[in-house]
Each structure stands twice: as C-alpha cells, then as structure tokens.
C-alpha cells in the first residue's frame, strides 16, 4: 500500500494538517502536499479510468505530464474538470471526484470495453460506426457520449475572476531549475529586464531530489542563495506557479499564472494570463521521464521512477512497501537508493542493459540492492493494483524466469528534453543517439524580428541530462542581455549520460504482450495499435497520431509520443529522425478558458457603445438591438404590448403625430481643405464639390470593385468644409477608408478629416407635428421658407446650441437636430416634454426600417450585400455621368456589372397581403445543374406596413424595372411559394408631399 512515511518530506509542513475529500471521502494531508501526494498518503492509488477501455488508472507521474490522475476539482461555481492532481496544491476544504467512470470508480461498466479490446483496435470508430448511417446519431453516439468523455462540464458560471497583463523584458527565462537560475543570474548581471518563470511553487527543478551539491554548495543552500540574489535585483522578476504556455512570433510568450488556485475565494484573480514580449527567450524546461513498454505497464502502482523518488523525498509518501525498479539507464538507481534510505523494500532493480557499471548502479549494489542486468518485465500482475512482476530476459521473447511479489513498479525509459517551447515557433530538432532523444538543433532555431535566434535552450532541455554537463556548458556565456549572442559563445558539451534505445520490453515480445503494453495511458493506445496502423499503411507520424489517437489526450503525449514514434519507426523499418515528431503546438499544458478570456466577461465582454440618451431609453423600457457595437432601441414597448405591436404603434404615431428617434449613432465626418471638394467627388458617385454652402445632398460610396459600400447625406458647412454622414455601423470604416486614400494614394491633396460622430447627439424629430415641436422649443426659424428641405442651419432650440438638418428618411416632415453629446440627454428630455401635447412618442430602429421601406429608401446591408452596384438599385440619378473618375467607376464598367441582365430593384406586394419571408428567392422555370430550382431574384427588405395594412417588400429581380404588374413567385420556408405583384418600390406618398411641407 502507499502511505505517509514517519519522517522527511521537504515540501510538506507536518504542523499544518489539511482536510480534503475524494469522492466524498474525508481525507487528510499537509500544507505543501499536492493532491496526488495526499491521495497516495491515504493509499488512494486508483484515481480514474482510461478513456476507451475504462481500465483502472493510478498516479504515474509527479508533475504536469501526468496523463492519468485527472479529477473534477471543486463544485458548483468552482467546478473544474480534468485537473491534474500532481500539480494541484492541496488546500483546506478541497473537494475532488474521479472522472470517466460509470457508475463508480471501483466498479465501472465501461470496463467491458476492456474485454472487447481486440474488437476495438486503432481506427475503431472510423471503421465501425459508418453503417447504417442513422445509427451513428441515434445509437452509437449517445452510448459513446455516455460512457466516454472526461470530466463534467460545469453547469453554472465561474465564481472566480481572471485577468491578463502585459510584460516586457530583455530576457525571458522559462524554467527555474539549476540551468534556468544560472541563466537568470547571468542575464541579470547585464542590467536588462529579466523575467524568470517557474511552473511549480518552488524553484530548483529536480535538483533538490536528484543532486547533493551545486558549485560546491549543498543544493538547498545554493538554491536559496541564488534565489535571494535574484530577488534582491530590481531588474529581475521571478514568477512561480507560472507556466510558459506558448512561444509565438517576435518574442511573444503567453504564460499562465495560477494566482489563487490554491487559495480559492480569497478575492484574488484565479489566474492571470501574461502576454510577454521578450527580446530573447531562454528555455530551461528540463526533461520528462519516459515510461517503458512492458505488458501491464498501465496497472495502478506502475509509476515513473523519478516520480517515485519525488513523492518519497518531497512529500514523505511511499507509493508502495515493495517497489521493483525497471530501467534502461542509471537515473532510476536514485529511486532505488531513495526507497532504501526511507526504509522501504526494493526487491530488485531490473536493468535492460547487459551491464550496469556506472557509479549509481555500483552504489546500489553496495547498499545491498539486488541488481539484475539484461532483464525485463514480462508481465505486471494485478488489477486495480500491482501485486507482482514476472521477470524475463530483455533479449528474448518473454519466457518467465522468476516472479517477484511487489506493490509498486518504478520505471525509467530515459528522459525526453522538453523542447515544446523551442519548437512552437519553428525551432528544429536533432536526434541525439547517445540519449535516444530529440534535442534542439542550435543551428536552426526559431527566428526573431531581426533574424537572430529567438529561443535558446539550456540545461536538460538541451539534452544535458546531468548536472555536470549543465555546469560545464556554462550557460552564463553570452547571456548578457543586450545585443546578439555570439554564435560561438556557447560551449559544445555532451552529457555523460547515455540512454540506449529500448522501446519494447522484452525485445521479441509476442503480440499477446504487445497488446498489453500501453503507450498512451489516457487514450488507451498500445504498442500493438501503432504497429497495426503501420501495417494498414500509415506512414506519416501525423496521420498515425490521428488514426490511433496517440498523444491526442489532454497530456498531448508528453509521456507517449517518443515511445510511440519509436515503435512506428521500427514497424516501418525506418530511423526515428526520418519518421520525425508530430508538431508541438501551444499551449504546453492546458490553459483554462477563463484565463484566455481574461477580463472579457459579463458587462465588459465586449465594448458596448452607448449614446448620450441610452440611460433615458433604458428607463423608458426600450428593447435594444445591436448595431455594430452600438446598442440602439429597437422599439419602446408599453405595458402589455408585443414588440410587433409597439413597432406598429410607433410607425402610425410618427406618420400621424410626432416621432422622436435617437439618431446619435449616425456617422459624422468632417472633411476640410482646399482639395476637399475634389476628394469627395472621387469618394462619392455624385458630385459634392458643387454643393452650395448651407445645403445637403444624398451620396453613395462604392469600393473599387464598384459595389455599393455606404450612403448618407453630405452637408456643405463652409467654403472648404463638408460634413459627411455615414451609416451607423459605417463611421469608423468610412473614416479609415478616407484616410487610406488620403495617406496612400493622394497624399499631395490638401485635405484633413476628423471623425466627429461622438461629439454630437442627434435627434430626428419626425411627423406632421415636427415643426410645431421645434417652434414650441423656440429659438430659431424653422419655417418652410427659411429652412427648406435638404438644407441645414445653426441656431438654438430651447436654449440648446443646435445644428438642424432638414432631411428625411421616413417621408415625413423631418428635422435631424445635432446637439453636443454632453447635452444630448437633456435635449431629448426637453423634446419629450415639449412634445407631450403634440403626441410625441419615441420610436426605434424597426419603425425606422418600416417607414423607409414604405418610402422605397434603400438600406445599406439590406439592399446591399457587397455584390450590388448602385445601378442595380435604380440609383443612377445619384451617379455623375460627367465625372471622368470616382472610386468604383472602373469596376462598374466590367461587362458582368454593366450587363442589362442583372437583378434590379423593384417593389413587391403579395396578392394575399401576407409578408414575404426574409431571405426568399424569386423562383424561375426549370432547374439548374444541381437539380435546384432556378431563381430570378430575391427579397431584400420585407415588412408588414401598418400604414398600408399589408405586407410590402423590396427585392432584386432580373429586368425588374421593366416588369411592372407581372406576378412572380417567392419561395417560402415550408417549401411552397407566395405570389406577389411587381411594382414600384415606393409604396407611400410617391410625390413626397408629406415631407415637403
């Protein structure tokens, strides 16, 4: 059994007991424990089930590479699935539950898959669930979803908050082990800004467990001294609990700081995502131990040798009373010695190598440990827990020589340098024969903006697997912060460690054994699965990965990838470097969505643009709709009214009395200068240079392809100043469009622009009583004679400084009044108050749309979709025939756009008075090559007109303007059609008598 030892444990505080639960069971641990160490201390080796076969899964590692021991952490608004127990710091009240089992962890029905394993080979899903087709949706998928899957998704919003922060430095060091600390120490001396990131709560990496002294000092003393030295420097920032998650272009690094994972509810943000821009990046990310592939290597109790000694030394936890060590390298002897020193039993070290003569094996022998060379594990015995191992010769086919009872197995298949961050942005790797691992190729690093090496790798991550070679490599050389490192600054050092390529144990294992050798513990991929993929023709490691799901679990193959591709290479008869690795993609370890979203949540999920009258609309009970990032009132429903009823009331009231619209969102751009007229003549299809001061003119803007992009009324303010109104969503885009042409094409033209959209609140006063309202407010002459249609005037109304435009988008008598935004709310209130006796009601965007459609006015985004030219909409009158050029003119001359066969604007009224469905097409005879009904047009705007009490529509129809009176058919959602008569698009007050009073 696994248990807490009586003594030791450098990371735990035995005076601070902590209570937590696992599957409802109350357990105790200590401050400083990880959840994994605390579970082991409570003899809870079984912590989950595998994905496919639901096999029992125990803790296998001690760090972020853990594939098995994932739990649901917390509950309710603090539930987080798939949390790795090995990096979860224990705190009082921690709640955890195991996942991926049903009905219980101890008895799981999905384990039946295990007995059917030979019917669930790689590519099983692809092969099996294809036929019959409907079965996938109704039978297979629901069953698979029930039994598979990992943790539970939370059902409520997250109680915690997250944030992001930007940081800049000259040198960023990822990894706070000996190599990282040495690099930081050297970089800090250069005076530049240095940031050191360490994923765990403590600095030191593996050194406190695996080493005794560094640079002549005891390890702990050395670490304390270096850390203290760094912390005393103003130019150094150390961030622990912070994982360097991804390296991106030009020194951009994302790092996830787990600020309050271990102190939930203390008011601090749970995570902080750092967005770091570093001049240079040094990764000192260490190496991850590899499992060995032997039959039964997934049974709980089989652990990585390094993890075993981490638990013993760090947390005083023994994974078992009797531990067999199996290895292909010297490092695992440290585990045997650590167990022995803790008073535990090590029945044997099985070394696959023919001889083991290094210092560590000799020390182990001297300590009385039985060392068997040339030996392998033929089989691990046990179900939910290891009970023993059967030993065989590594060279043979697995004939059992001996059986040993034990309750744990510590394995080491060598070490793989963590090259992830180096590879994220294109750093290339080399295969190092000596240590059977991929290492960074310093001659092909990822590049920075100036073409220099962006990422440099030091320590075990560079293949220096022993302290001696890390020290010999002298990472301080060339780490000065400013300027480029000299290419020859770094010494070439080879590690003294050798790791032979032993990928399968025993070498000649038959299929029965190979189908029990796990590569990917979480996704249940075995040696036999990869070999099957190879037999079925998979050659690319990327394809094999996806076919077998090797390395596709939440651990992204940190333990399995190298072993898997070695097996694939062997099956294909190729060398490992030829087969290559799969692509390393960020993040290195999972980053929670909360951190990625940062502050973008709730009220500040995205910027909401509010007009100065927004608060007043809210009080009036307005129903808002998004228009770009603006929120505009769609309608102002009264008690008991539906939105539709409200819209109808607003339309009828505006047409018969008085309506008020908040038009503040309308784009307003000042264009000024000696060449402003010339510039606007290029921008608009019509002529703006001839517009007299004081007058307004409607204009169209097209892109260079000729397609209509925006419209609005232009007012001439003075001799060299124009004010261009744009659509509500278009102000920023059109302002940018103007600046683009002024800066990049006509930079010698004397024109300045300013986007003054937000300087003004704008109120449209619309309806037969509009003039009366302005007269009640008083202050300026707004009579028909003094302020005729399509003119503007400055003045005051009710004491407010205003600019009044006599323009109409509804067909009614209408004034649009611009007031400084800081007085917008007050002016709106004044209009509402003064309008009471005149029947004033606010109206929203939907009433606006209905009224403009009744008048046949086009709306950008309804009648246009980026493929429509003004000529399609019968707007030829707004296009100058005289101008030799305007933006879009050449585009419109293209034969397809100039064709007389284009779909053109017309009005439509259904014979039965109904409203044509949005998105309907006008059907034509026959079918096209795909068997679809031919079409000859489509609806662009369709509404119920409360004024006319029938459905009205605008749309595009082939030869539309020449087909007045003809009856066409629009398709409907239900599959039928609705008949409509083609007519003029102006449904209401064709002669404009209402607006021109």
């Amino acid at each position, binding site marked *: 059994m696994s248990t807490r030892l009586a003594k030791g444990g450098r990371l735990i505080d035995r005076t601070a007991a902590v209570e937590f639960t696992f599957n409802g069971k109350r357990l105790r641990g200590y401050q400083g424990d990880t959840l994994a160490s605390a579970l082991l201390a409570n003899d809870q080796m079984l912590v989950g089930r595998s994905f496919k076969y639901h096999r029992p899964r125990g803790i296998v590692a001690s760090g972020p590479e853990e594939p098995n021991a994932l739990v649901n952490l917390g509950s309710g608004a603090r539930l987080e699935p798939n949390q790795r127990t090995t990096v979860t710091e224990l705190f009082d009240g921690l709640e955890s539950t195991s996942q991926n089992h049903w009905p219980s962890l101890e008895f799981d029905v999905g384990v039946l898959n295990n007995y059917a394993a030979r019917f669930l080979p790689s590519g099983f899903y692809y092969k099996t669930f294809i036929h019959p087709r409907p079965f996938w949706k109704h039978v297979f998928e629901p069953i698979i979803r029930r039994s598979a899957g990992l943790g539970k998704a939370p059902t409520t919003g997250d109680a915690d908050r997250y944030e992001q922060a930007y940081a800049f430095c000259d040198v960023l060091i990822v990894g706070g082990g000996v190599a990282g600390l040495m690099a930081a120490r050297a970089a800090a001396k250069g005076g530049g800004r240095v940031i050191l990131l360490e994923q765990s709560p403590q600095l030191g990496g593996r050194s406190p467990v695996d080493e005794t002294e560094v640079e002549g000092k005891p390890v702990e003393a050395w670490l304390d001294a270096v850390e203290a030295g760094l912390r005393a420097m103003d130019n150094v920032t150390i961030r622990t609990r912070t994982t360097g998650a991804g390296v991106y*272009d*030009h020194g951009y690094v994302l790092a996830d700081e787990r600020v309050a994972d271990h102190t939930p509810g203390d008011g601090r943000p749970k995570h902080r995502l750092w967005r770091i*821009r570093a001049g240079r990046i040094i990764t000192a990310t260490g190496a991850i131990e590899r499992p060995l592939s032997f039959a039964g290597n997934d049974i709980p109790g089989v652990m990585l040798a390094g993890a075993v000694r981490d638990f013993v030394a760090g947390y005083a936890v023994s994974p078992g009373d009797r531990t067999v060590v199996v290895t292909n390298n010297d490092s695992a002897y440290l585990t045997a010695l650590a167990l022995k020193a803790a008073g535990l039993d090590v029945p044997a070290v099985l070394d696959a190598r023919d001889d083991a003569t290094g210092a560590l094996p000799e020390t182990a022998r001297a300590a009385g440990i039985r060392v068997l060379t040339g030996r392998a594990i033929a089989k691990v015995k046990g179900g939910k827990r290891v009970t023993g191992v059967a030993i065989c010769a590594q060279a043979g086919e697995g004939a059992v020589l001996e059986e040993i009872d034990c309750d744990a197995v510590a394995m080491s298949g060598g070490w793989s340098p963590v090259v992830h961050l180096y590879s994220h942005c294109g750093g290339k790797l080399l295969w190092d024969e000596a240590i059977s691992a991929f290492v960074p190729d310093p001659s092909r690093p990822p590049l920075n903006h100036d*073409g220099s090496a962006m990422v440099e790798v030091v320590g075990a991550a560079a293949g220096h697997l022993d302290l001696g070679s890390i020290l010999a490599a002298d990472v301080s050389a060339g780490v000065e912060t400013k300027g480029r490192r000299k290419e020859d600054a770094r010494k070439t050092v080879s590690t003294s460690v050798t790791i032979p390529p032993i990928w399968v144990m025993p070498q000649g294992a038959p299929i029965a054994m190979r189908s029990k050798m796990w590569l990917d513990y979480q996704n249940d991929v075995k040696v036999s699965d990869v070999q099957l993929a190879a037999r079925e023709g998979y050659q690319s490691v990327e394809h094999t990965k996806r076919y077998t799901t090797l390395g596709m679990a939440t651990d992204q193959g940190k333990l399995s990838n190298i072993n898997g591709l070695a097996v694939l290479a062997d099956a294909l008869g190729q060398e490992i470097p030829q087969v290559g690795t799969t692509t390393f993609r960020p993040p290195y370890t999972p980053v929670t969505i909360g951190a990625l979203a940062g502050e973008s949540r709730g009220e500040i999920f995205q910027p909401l643009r509010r007009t100065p009258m927004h608060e007043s609309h809210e009080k009036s009970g307005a129903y808002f709709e998004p228009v770009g990032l603006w929120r505009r009132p769609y309608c102002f429903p009264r008690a008991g009214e539906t939105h539709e009823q409200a819209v109808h009331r607003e339309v009828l009231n505006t047409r018969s009395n008085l309506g008020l619209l908040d038009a503040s969102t309308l784009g307003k751009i000042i264009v000024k200068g000696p060449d402003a007229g010339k510039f606007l003549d290029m921008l608009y299809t019509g002529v703006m240079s001839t517009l007299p001061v004081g007058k307004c003119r409607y204009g169209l803007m097209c892109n260079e392809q000729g397609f209509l992009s925006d419209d609005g009324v232009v007012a001439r303010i003075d001799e060299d100043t124009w004010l261009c109104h744009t659509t509500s969503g278009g102000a920023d885009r059109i302002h*940018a469009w103007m*600046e*683009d042409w002024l*800066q990049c094409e006509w*930079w010698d033209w004397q024109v300045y622009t300013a986007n003054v959209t937000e300087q003004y609140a704008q109120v449209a006063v619309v309806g037969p009583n509009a003039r009366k309202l302005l007269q009640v407010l008083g202050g300026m002459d707004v009579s028909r004679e003094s302020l005729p249609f399509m003119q503007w005037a400055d003045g005051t109304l009710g004491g407010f400084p205003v600019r009044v435009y006599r323009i109409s988008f509804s067909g009614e008598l209408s004034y649009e009044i611009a007031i400084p935004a800081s007085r917008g709310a007050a002016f709106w209130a004044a209009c509402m108050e003064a309008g009471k006796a005149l029947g004033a009601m606010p109206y929203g965007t939907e009433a606006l749309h209905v009224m403009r459609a009744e008048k046949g006015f086009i709306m950008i985004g309804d009648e246009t979709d980026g493929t429509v030219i003004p000529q399609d909409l019968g707007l030829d009158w707004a296009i100058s025939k005289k101008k030799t050029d305007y933006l879009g003119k050449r585009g419109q*001359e293209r034969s397809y756009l100039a064709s007389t066969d284009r779909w053109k604007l017309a009005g439509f009224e259904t014979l039965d008075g109904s409203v044509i469905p949005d998105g309907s097409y006008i059907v034509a005879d026959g079918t096209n090559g795909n068997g679809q009904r031919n079409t000859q047009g489509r609806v662009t705007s369709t509404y119920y007109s409360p004024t006319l009490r029938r459905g009205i529509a605008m749309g595009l129809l082939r030869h539309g303007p020449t087909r007045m009176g003809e009856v066409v058919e629009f398709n409907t959602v239900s599959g039928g059609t609705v008949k409509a008569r083609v007519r003029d698009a102006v449904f209401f007050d064709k002669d404009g008598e209402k607006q021109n009073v």
Partner: protein
Amino acid sequence: MLTLECPYCGVMADETELSPGYEAHLKRFGPGASPEEFEAYMFARKNPKGVHFERWRHTYGCGKWFLAARCTATLEVFGTYPAQVSAPPADIIAKIQARRPNWQPDWQPDGKAPE
C-alpha cells in the same frame, strides 16, 4: 504576433495595435484601364515565400498607414517606412539585400513593374 515599428510615432507596436492592409505599392487603375490592368490592380496579389512589402495601419496608435518589408517565411522584418512612396526606398532595399544577398527587386527604377 508581430511587432512592427511605426515610422511615424516611433512606437514598437504590438500587432494588436495594427490593422493589416495587404500588398504595398499597388498602382491604381481607374476608368480607361484595360481589363488586364484592372485585374492586376484589383485581384492579382503577390504571395511570395520570402521578401514581401505590405501595408499596415497603426489603427490604435497614430492612425497612419505605413509600409513594411518583411520575410513571409521567417517573419524577419527588414524595415518599415512611410506610405507616401511608390516604391521601396533605397535604404530599405539595402537592408533587405544585406540579409538576403540573392534577392532582387522585381520592379524597375521608375517604379513600374517589369513587363
């Protein structure tokens, strides 16, 4: 996530302060242009693996458009310069050739594209 120096305000701007604007140094063809010329202007964009010239706007900064010479394969930036030129200036060409000795401009000194 690139960093580009805005030549107007001198800021090393994070890509999130910028908006991309496609290929630089396009010559506008308006009315009277042949279909081929108009097609070249409107649609035929270069997409080299290597040295490329592109437009960027410092949208969240000074609002100005500038041009960048960049290697699309390695993301090395050779230089940025104001947009009011019809061809890359000589110092930018020199910087590119210092880093990519075999690279030659594909336009003629008068700014016209080769036939």
